[in-house]
C-alpha cells in the first residue's frame, strides 16, 4: 500500500473533473485520479452542443434558458440552481472559446448556434438557436480542450487508478472527508490518497441498461461508492432515454440531427411527432419524443422486419449540409448499420442515455449528507452529481453546460475549502474494506460469471424499468435485482493476477451497477406518478400534490436494501404548469 497526500483529490477526468482540476490546480496541490486516460472519458462522446444564451444568431436571454430548463425538467428542477447554470452558461462557453475550443462560426466569426430539443424563445413560443457546437463532436472538443489546458497547467494525473472507496473520519461528532482509496490497474497495488477535499466527477451509470449510449466504463462507480458510504442519492429513478439510438446498438445519433432538420417517421411514413407535440414536433424534449417512439412501436407502426424501431429521415437534407454539420453521426449509421443516410432513413430507437439523479449537492457542488447538511470536504459535479438542474428530464446540451459550470464551481469550492481546512487523520486501516472487497472476489475459486449476471441485470432493466414502467414491471425488476445481488455474493473471476486485471474490476463494477439498479427501481416504484423521464403506465399523470419532491435514497444498514426519504423542490420564479410542446 502506498499513501499520498494532496490538498484536493479529484476523482474522474471527464469534462467535470478536468474543469474542476483547472481551478483547483492553480490554487492548491491537486491530483486527478481517473480509471481511464483523461481523453477516453465519455464526455468525448457528446455530440450536439452546449447551450448558452449568447444571442449570437438570434434574440435570446438566460431567463428563457432557465425557464426551458425548469419546464423541460418537468418542474422537478431546483430553480435556484437552474438560474445559476443559465446565467453562468455564457461565461462557460466564452471561457472554453478562450481556451481554444474550435467552435463552428457564423459568417461574422462569432460562435455559431443551432436549435436543440426543448430550447425556446419567450417561454415556449418557438425553437431558438442556443446550442454552441463544434460540428457533431462538441464533447470531444470540450474534452480535448480541457485536457490541453491541464497539460498547459501541469495538472497531476493518476491514470488508470480506480477509486473504490471514500474515507471519512469523525472529528467533533462531524464526519469529515479524509481521502480516497484507489486501485492501480497496472500493478494491482492499493493507494490511499489523503486529502483535505475530494471532488467526485465520475460520470454516469448507463451500463445499468442493456441498450445504452454510454461507454462500457460508465458503471456509476462514484454514485455507488457514495451510497455505500451512507450518503444519499437523489432522484435516481429519473433516467433519460435518448430517442435516437441506432436500433439494436444504442449508439447515439445526436439530437443535432433533428436540430438540423431530420424528421422521425413511422412505418407509414408519417411524421408522427406532429401528433404528440404540435409546436416543437421532432424537437420536443427527449422524454416526450422517446415515449412517442415507443408508443408508435407498441401500436404496431414500427418499421423493420420485427416492427420494433422507427426511422430518422435525413434524406431531404443536402448531402453537403449533412457532411458539414453531422459528419460523425452519419458515419456511425454507415459503419454500424450499413445505412446510407443521404438516401435511406436510419433505424432508431430510444437508448439509455443520462442519469438525471446522483449525489445531491448545493450550487457550490458541496455534497449533502442528508436533506440539509453538507459533508465537509466532499464535492461532486457532472453526471455523478444531482444539483438538480435537470429535474425529471434533462434538456439536450444542458449536461455539457452542467459539467463546465458546476465542475468549475466544484474546483473553486474545494480549493477554497482546502486552503482553510486542516488535514483530517486517516481512519484506522484505511484500505481494509477495499482489500477485503477485492480479495474476496479474487480468491473465490469457483462461482458465477460476471458477464452472465450483468447481462441478466441489463435485460431485466431494459424490459422492466425503461421508457414505460408499471408496478408490475418494477416489482419484477426489483425481485430480479435482489436475486442477482444474492448470486453476486458468489461471483468469481478467472484472472487471478495483479497486473491489468480488468476481469476483477469488471466484477467490482457489476457490484456498483447492482446497487444502483436497486435504487433506481425502488425509487421508481415509490413514485406513483409520471414526470419527465419517469413514466408510469399505472399513474400516467403528474401528481404535484404528492410527488413534487426529490427522492433521497439511502442504503439501509439493516437489510442491505434501500431506504427512501424526500426533499422539497426549490421553486423560485416558475410555478408548475402543464407541459405542452
Amino acid at each position, binding site marked *: 500500500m502506498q499513501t499520498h497526500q494532496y490538498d484536493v483529490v479529484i476523482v474522474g477526468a471527464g469534462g467535470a473533473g478536468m474543469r474542476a482540476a483547472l481551478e483547483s490546480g492553480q490554487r492548491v496541490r491537486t491530483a486527478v485520479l481517473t480509471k481511464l486516460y483523461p481523453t477516453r472519458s465519455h464526455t468525448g462522446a457528446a455530440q450536439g452542443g452546449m447551450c448558452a444564451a449568447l444571442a449570437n444568431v438570434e434574440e435570446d436571454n438566460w431567463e428563457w434558458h432557465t425557464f426551458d430548463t425548469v419546464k423541460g425538467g418537468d418542474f422537478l428542477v431546483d430553480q435556484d440552481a437552474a438560474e445559476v447554470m443559465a446565467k453562468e452558461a455564457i461565461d462557460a462557453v466564452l471561457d472554453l*472559446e478562450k481556451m481554444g475550443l474550435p467552435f463552428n*462560426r457564423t459568417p461574422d466569426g462569432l460562435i455559431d448556434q443551432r436549435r436543440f430539443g426543448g430550447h425556446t424563445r419567450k417561454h415556449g413560443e418557438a425553437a431558438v438557436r442556443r446550442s454552441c457546437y463544434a*460540428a457533431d463532436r462538441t464533447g470531444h472538443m470540450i474534452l480535448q480542450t480541457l485536457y490541453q489546458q491541464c497539460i498547459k497547467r501541469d495538472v497531476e494525473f493518476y491514470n488508470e487508478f480506480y477509486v473504490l472507496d471514500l474515507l471519512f473520519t469523525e472529528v467533533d461528532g462531524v464526519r469529515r472527508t479524509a481521502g480516497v482509496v484507489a486501485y492501480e490497474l497496472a500493478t494491482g497495488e492499493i493507494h490511499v490518497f489523503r486529502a483535505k477535499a475530494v471532488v467526485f466527477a465520475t460520470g454516469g451509470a448507463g451500463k445499468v441498461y*442493456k441498450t445504452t449510449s454510454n461507454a462500457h466504463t460508465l458503471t456509476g462507480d462514484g454514485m455507488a461508492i457514495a451510497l455505500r458510504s451512507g450518503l444519499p442519492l437523489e432522484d435516481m429513478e429519473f433516467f433519460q432515454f435518448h430517442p435516437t439510438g441506432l436500433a439494436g446498438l444504442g449508439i447515439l445519433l445526436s439530437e443535432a440531427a433533428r436540430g438540423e432538420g431530420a424528421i422521425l417517421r413511422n412505418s407509414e411514413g408519417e411524421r408522427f411527432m406532429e401528433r404528440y407535440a404540435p409546436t416543437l414536433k421532432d424537437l420536443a424534449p427527449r422524454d416526450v419524443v422517446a415515449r412517442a417512439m415507443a408508443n408508435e412501436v407498441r401500436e404496431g407502426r414500427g418499421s423493420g422486419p420485427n416492427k420494433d424501431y422507427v426511422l430518422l429521415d435525413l434524406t431531404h437534407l443536402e448531402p453537403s449540409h449533412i457532411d458539414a454539420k453531422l459528419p460523425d453521426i452519419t458515419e456511425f449509421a454507415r459503419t454500424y448499420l450499413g445505412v446510407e443516410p443521404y438516401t435511406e432513413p436510419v433505424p432508431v430507437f430510444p437508448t439509455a442515455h443520462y442519469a438525471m439523479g446522483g449525489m445531491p449537492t448545493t450550487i457550490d457542488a458541496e455534497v449533502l449528507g442528508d436533506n440539509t447538511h453538507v459533508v465537509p470536504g466532499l464535492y461532486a459535479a457532472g453526471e455523478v452529481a444531482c444539483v438538480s438542474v435537470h429535474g425529471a428530464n434533462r434538456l439536450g446540451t444542458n449536461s455539457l453546460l452542467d459539467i463546465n459550470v458546476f465542475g468549475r464551481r466544484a474546483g473553486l469550492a474545494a480549493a477554497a475549502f482546502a486552503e482553510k481546512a486542516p488535514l483530517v487523520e486517516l481512519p484506522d486501516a484505511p484500505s481494509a474494506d477495499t482489500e477485503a472487497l477485492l480479495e474476496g472476489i479474487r480468491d473465490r475459486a469457483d462461482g458465477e460469471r460476471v458477464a452472465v449476471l450483468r*447481462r441478466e441485470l441489463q435485460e431485466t432493466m431494459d424490459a422492466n424499468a425503461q421508457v414505460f414502467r408499471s408496478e408490475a414491471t418494477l416489482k419484477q425488476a426489483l425481485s430480479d435485482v435482489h436475486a442477482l445481488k444474492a448470486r453476486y455474493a458468489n461471483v468469481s473471476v*478467472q484472472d487471478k493476477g495483479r*497486473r491489468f486485471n480488468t476481469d476483477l474490476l469488471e466484477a467490482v463494477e457489476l457490484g456498483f451497477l447492482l446497487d444502483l439498479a436497486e435504487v433506481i427501481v425502488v425509487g421508481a416504484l415509490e413514485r406513483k406518478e409520471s414526470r419527465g423521464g419517469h413514466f408510469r403506465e399505472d399513474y400516467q399523470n403528474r401528481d404535484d400534490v404528492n410527488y413534487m419532491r426529490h427522492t433521497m435514497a439511502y442504503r439501509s444498514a439493516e437489510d442491505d436494501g434501500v431506504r427512501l426519504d424526500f426533499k422539497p423542490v426549490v421553486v423560485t420564479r416558475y410555478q408548475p404548469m402543464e407541459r405542452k410542446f
Partner: protein
Amino acid sequence: MTAAVADAPVAGAVPSFQVTLRLRRFNPESDTEARWEEHTVTMHGTDRVLDALHKIKWEIDGSLTFRRSCAHGICGSDAMRINGRNRLACKTLLKDLPLDKPVTVEPIKGLAVLKDLVVDMDPFFEAYKSIMPFLVTTGNDPSRERRQSPEDRARYDDTTKCIMCAACTTSCPVYWSDGQYFGPQAIVGAHRFIFDSRDEGAEQRLEILNDRDGVWRCRTTFNCTDACPRGIEVTKAIQEVKRALLFRRV
C-alpha cells in the same frame, strides 16, 4: 452489447457465423514471451472485433486483457493490429474481414506491451505533451469570444478530430525503428494549433518539430493516413507543417 446486437432487427437479415480469432497474448506474470492463442466463437450480423473479444473474455477466458470504453470509435482506447493493420476493434466489423482464415489480433507496434493487447501509452502521450498542445495567446483575454472566420476555422478542422488512439504513430515504420521520432499524432496535435488563426505559438511549435526527431523524419509512408480511424489526412497535415517550416521561416 453482443446480446443487443443479436437481437438487433437489422441484424436479423444477417446470419450468425463462426469466427476464429488468433490472439497475441502476453501475461507479464507468467510468460517470458508473447504467444499466439486461438479461439472460435459464434458471432452475428453487425458484430465488431471488439464484440468478439468481449465474448472471449466474458465466456471463455476472463484473463484476456484489452482496453476499451466507448465502443463506437470515439474514445481511442482500443487501437490494435487486426490482420496486420492498425484499427479500432470497435470500428472493425467482422463481416468485412475475410473469415475463412483466423483474424489475427495483436497489440499495436512500437510501444512496450504490458499485458496481452495493452501497451504502455506513456511515451505516446509524452510526445503529444512536448509540442505545446494548447492555445498560446498574448495580451489580455478579450471580453467576448475571439473572432474567427468559417474559412479560418476550416483550415485546421481535420486535425481537431484526433482521438489520440495512437493507431497512426504505431503504424509508422520510422516510429518502430527507435521510438524517438515524435510520431504522426504529435504532429497532428501541433498542426491543429499551428493553423489556428487565434494561436500565437506557431513559431515555438515549429521550432520543436524542426528537431532531429521532428517532422523531417517522416518518410511519407502514409501508414498513418491509412490507419487513422477518424479519416484524418495525417500525412497531408505533416506536409503542411513541413512547408510551414520551409517557407515561413526559411
